[in-house]
């Protein structure tokens, strides 16, 4: 089986890899790079547990071939922490109790990050729409929505 050689930047670090033609970005991140934050959920694009950012846009890594993102900039939940300092989104998810089992959390936070990077002061409706491709089956959505709005306030330097 012919390998496809790709160069991708993952969390700022250039990775040169030989991937299978049918290999998904999710498999590449988890199996080759050991980044276990993005999760496999449904494999159909409905749950959003695999969400990562490709060129800043929320993208379902289980429906994206690794070969397709050759040359692109990828961001995963592992790239958010700066040194030992959590990203404001991570901090506020913890503080607001927006995490229970945590399976959906990396995807939800990456969808939220895509929004906040483009819109520093989103309405609650925009937040809800931004995470509308992220299913949570235990915490619900009230606390994640609160956490994202709180993180946005902090990132704007309020409070």
């Amino acid at each position, binding site marked *: *089986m*012919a390998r*496809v050689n790709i160069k991708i930047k993952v969390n700022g670090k250039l990775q040169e890899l030989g991937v299978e*033609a*049918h290999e*998904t970005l999710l*498999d590449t991140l988890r199996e080759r790079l050991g980044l276990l934050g993005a999760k496999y959920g449904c*494999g*159909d*694009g*409905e749950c*959003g547990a695999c*969400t990562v950012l490709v060129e800043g*846009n*929320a*993208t*379902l890594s*289980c*429906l*994206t*071939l690794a*070969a*397709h993102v*050759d040359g692109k900039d990828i961001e995963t939940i592992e790239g958010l922490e700066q040194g030992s300092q959590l990203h404001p989104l991570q901090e506020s998810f913890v503080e607001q109790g927006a995490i229970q089992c945590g399976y959906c959390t990396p995807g939800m936070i990456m*969808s939220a990050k895509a929004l906040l990077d483009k819109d520093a002061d989103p309405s609650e409706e925009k937040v*809800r*729409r*931004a995470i*509308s*491709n992220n299913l949570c089956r235990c915490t619900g959505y009230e606390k994640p929505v609160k956490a994202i709005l709180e993180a946005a306030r902090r990132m704007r330097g309020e409070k």
Partner: protein
Amino acid sequence: MKPFFKPKAYFRPGSLGKAVELLSNFGDRAKVLAGGTDLLVQKPSGVECLIDIADLGLEYIKEHENGVEIGAATTVRSIGVSGSLSSEPYLVLRDAACALGTPTIRNMATIGGNICNASPAADLPLALMVLGASLTIMGPAGKREVNIGEFFENIGGKNIQADELLLSINIPASRGRCGTSFQKLRHHQTSIDIAIVNVAARMTCEKQACVKASIALGAVAPTPIYARKAEALLGKKRPNAAIIQEAANAASEEVNPIDDVRGSKWYRKKMAAVLVRRALEESSRRCGIWPE
């Protein structure tokens, strides 16, 4: 991944000629990859190679004097936020794009994919049907044009061969004042689920009368369809509540839906009438002739 979807080769041609050559060589054993949101969900068996169209320069929205041309690999998100599509008659396409899937799906899915997947419930084809769009398709013998209304055949069938590639969608400029609308019913209005019924409508007005109406419905027949009898009822008249209701009822009689997990045939026919009424009301409002 499901084990039966294991293409051995991945190609990313840099020219249209090379892409068509690859399609000719592999035929049915090749699949075109654009956004992947249908292909990688369906994971069809027997696919030996994937032809990624990312490097063919097919991601664009161009305004010109004869209308708007959209590249097949343009994402649904780009269509939803495009300034070129933010006025009539293009609002129907913008609204259909904003109603497709979720924001994450819209970042990935492409207009060409939404057409070529040929789902009877697809959103963008309905908008393109009422806009009278044509498709530019390239094959080994060169390019050809197909009207979008003649593209769909039976469930999932389409007027494109295994060695052909959809290049662009061409929307003619409108003559006269237009109002359009896109309506979609699904189980949760912001959810990812596909339509139970979806409707696109367009009215062209002169003075205070509708001179031409176009209505397309999805998820109510094996392919997206026009409601020709309903369209005829609107011609040359000033729309009012009674005429719009009559057209909505006529459209409901023209459709032939099935019972499935999303809705029964009975429910779909009822909802087809409701959605056509709302689409015609919004179209005539956007045209500036509603309410009287």
